[in-house]
């Protein structure tokens, strides 16, 4: 079976397949238990102690935040009953009354203040709420947040797992996150590291319209791609969080399974160190943008599960503007190189780490060979890679970035002067971009913000510190009888809706 973007379409098909396969062994004994295969274990149960999507998948079920994203990637209130903005830098947030943590204790503004302040101090997620100056309690359910300056993405920062509202009394207890307590649709049962995480439905969830639909959710960690697909095929799991592009056709053809695919916010790029020859020359960088065959990379590295990247963020982000100028054109690339003074005598290094990036680098290497550039690939172990690409010695390197919904969180770290030596690995500096970034953060009007970022995209692409390669698709498979599968650009979404009929 096939499902494109959401389950709505697939549910029609459901009926036909349903009948045909009534005696299939896929049928679950316990329909009230949903098994989800994760491709990697969660890092931590503390939402302020992790910063990765897999951990978020779990912590979103355990905890609530003040706002949440809907499937269109817009922030909508969750715990917040109502909010207002008395001034540019001030936000007054009132949470719903009667929200109870799993141990029955009611959530109050104490917890909100505590959580936001704790988030600011957590090494792992401190960057998320870094703009907050202070949090003050107004009454039992109301807090006032003051930002350091006018800060447009504020609401978006509150949807991050790092902004989860935690029960103060629990966090200050001695439990060390062995039995975390939250307010979410599901309660924690156990986490066997490397193996599984078990959650059960919170029957007292505050939002009766959004209750968890199945009684139990079990996350199983299955790191190997093929094994994960097989587990889905054997019915050992009901849904997998990622599917290798290679296995997509198999799932598609399997009448018992449905395939879901949606572009993600993860962009892959080949960065170039603009401080280091030959990439200090904008012509060379542009030449690279013409030289790389992105389609081939998508084919080889992703087995087709992605789309060409035409600018420095995913399309889903605010202010995205595609650059249509750069196409795969080796001739043009050669010309530019000649113009830059290189005539078939250029040697560069491409750095990479990991299998997919290795394949990507191999394709780029082959592409560059076509235009007479000799590239040698240097592989790194991940930890070493992160350090090395910050050292300033890097030439071209292959990396990726998974965006949060607000463009600021993506663009500022990557292109601001300040983050040279950190996330700005191509060491790109441009006064214009610097200004645009500042403007973008401060501008509260979405339309105007969009324009600012449009301009930023244009400028950066023109200067070409990156060759944007592709935006990968989120691909996942699920049992076709499973209902309520939703996909956001960041992956599995609204897991509490999963259920069998």
């Amino acid at each position, binding site marked *: 079976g096939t499902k494109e973007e959401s389950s709505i379409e697939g549910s029609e098909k459901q009926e036909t397949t349903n009948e045909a396969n009534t005696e299939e062994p896929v049928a679950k004994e316990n329909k009230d238990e949903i098994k989800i295969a994760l491709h990697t274990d969660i890092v931590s149960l503390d939402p302020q102690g992790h910063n990765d999507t897999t951990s978020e998948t779990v912590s979103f079920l355990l905890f609530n935040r003040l706002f949440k994203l809907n499937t269109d990637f817009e922030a909508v209130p969750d715990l917040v009953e109502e909010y207002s903005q008395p001034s540019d830098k001030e936000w007054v947030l009132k949470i719903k009354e009667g929200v109870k943590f799993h141990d029955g204790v009611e959530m109050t503004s104490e917890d909100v203040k505590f959580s936001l302040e704790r988030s600011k101090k957590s090494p792992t997620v401190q960057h998320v709420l870094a703009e907050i100056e202070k949090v003050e309690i107004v009454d039992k359910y109301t807090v006032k947040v003051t930002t350091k300056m006018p800060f447009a993405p504020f609401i978006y920062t509150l949807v991050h797992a790092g902004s989860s509202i935690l029960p103060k009394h629990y966090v200050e207890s001695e439990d060390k996150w062995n039995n975390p307590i939250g307010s979410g649709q599901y309660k924690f049962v156990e986490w066997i590291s490397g193996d599984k995480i078990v959650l059960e439905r919170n029957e007292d969830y505050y939002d009766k319209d959004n209750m968890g639909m199945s009684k139990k959710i079990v996350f199983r960690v299955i790191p190997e*791609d*093929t094994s994960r697909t097989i587990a889905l095929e054997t019915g050992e799991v009901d849904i997998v969080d990622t599917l*290798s592009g*290679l296995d997509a056709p*198999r799932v598609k053809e399997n009448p018992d399974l449905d395939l879901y695919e949606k572009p993600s916010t993860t962009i892959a790029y080949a960065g170039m160190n603009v401080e280091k020859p030959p990439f200090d020359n904008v012509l060379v960088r542009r030449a690279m943008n013409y030289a790389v*065959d992105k*389609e*081939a990379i998508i*084919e*080889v590295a992703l*087995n087709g599960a992605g789309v060409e990247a035409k600018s420095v963020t995913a399309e889903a982000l605010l202010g995205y503007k595609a650059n249509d100028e750069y196409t795969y054109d080796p001739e043009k690339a050669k010309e530019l190189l000649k113009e830059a003074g290189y005539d078939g005598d250029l040697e560069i290094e491409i750095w*990479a*780490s990991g*299998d997919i990036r*290795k*394949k990507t*680098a*191999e*394709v780029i*290497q*082959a592409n560059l*060979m076509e235009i007479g550039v000799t590239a*040698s*690939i*240097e*592989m*790194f*172990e*991940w930890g*070493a*890679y992160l350090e090395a690409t910050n050292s300033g010695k890097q030439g071209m390197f292959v990396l990726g970035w998974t965006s949060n919904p607000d463009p600021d969180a993506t663009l500022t770290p990557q292109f601001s002067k300040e983050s040279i030596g950190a996330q700005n690995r191509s060491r790109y500096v441009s006064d214009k971009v610097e200004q645009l970034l500042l403007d973008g953060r401060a501008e509260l009007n979405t339309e105007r913000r969009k324009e600012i970022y449009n301009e930023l995209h244009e400028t950066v692409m023109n200067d070409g510190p990156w060759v944007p390669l592709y935006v990968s698709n989120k691909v996942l498979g699920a049992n076709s009888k499973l209902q309520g599968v939703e996909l956001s650009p960041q992956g599995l979404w609204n897991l509490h809706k999963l259920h069998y009929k």
Partner: protein
Amino acid sequence: MDSAYIQNIEEIKKKYKKRSQTREVWRRLKKNKMAILGIIILSIFILTAIFADYIADYKTEAIRMNARERLQEPSKEHWFGTDDLGRDIFARIVHGTRISLFVGTISVGIALSIGGTLGAISGYYGGKFDNIIMRTLDIILAVPSILLAITIVSSLGANIVNVMIAVGISNIPGFARVVRAAVLGVKDQEYIEAARAIGAKNHVIILKHVLPNCLAPIIVYSTLKVATAIMAAAGLSFIGLGVKPPTPEWGSMLSGGRAFIRDKMYIVLFPGLAIIATILSLNLLGDGLRDALDPRLK
């Protein structure tokens, strides 16, 4: 001695000295059909390694990406099919022979020479020596090879030699144990005492009298470890410590193709077969050599 006898010496020499040690071993090896099979297979690989460039062009066939010819089944054009970058697997195996044979044998060589020496010393001298060496090796054994490799490569740089060193070092304790066990069985023999009686120094005794009599387990273990070494090196190339892509190398081809195992078996099958054939030939040769080196089995 009477002079007639002495005059005969030249003649005697001609008659008997011809059978030098190596010739003798070779003569006996020749009789072992399996060993000959091993030698033939191994020679094919070695010749392949030497003449790789004449068999398949490196630039155009082994390393050049060809997006249009991705993942093709074996055919007349591509005997072993093509990989996910559209490169000819046959050409990659041919060119990979060089590196894989090299990595496998050299890293086993490193482990054997160092581990063997330590094992021999610790077995021969025993007592405190033994305890110190073996416990130190216990420590090395506990350090995972990946960590060792990361360290070596990050302090010495990522190149093939350092990979061999890394794989070699992590195999030292194993070889030491095997050699030590064998030495323990030999060192109390009377001919060792006899050697001491004629004034041989300890190192001479170890080299000339102890080790030659411990060959069987050492040969068996070494020939097998070549396979593990090839694959260990591949494991390292996976975390970026092995050969630089796109250099073809069997182990990496094998592990790089793991995702294709369900649909495109041939991608992993052929490199796997190449490794098996190599190890098979080494083992056949090793068995033969062991028997040939043992005059008792004549």
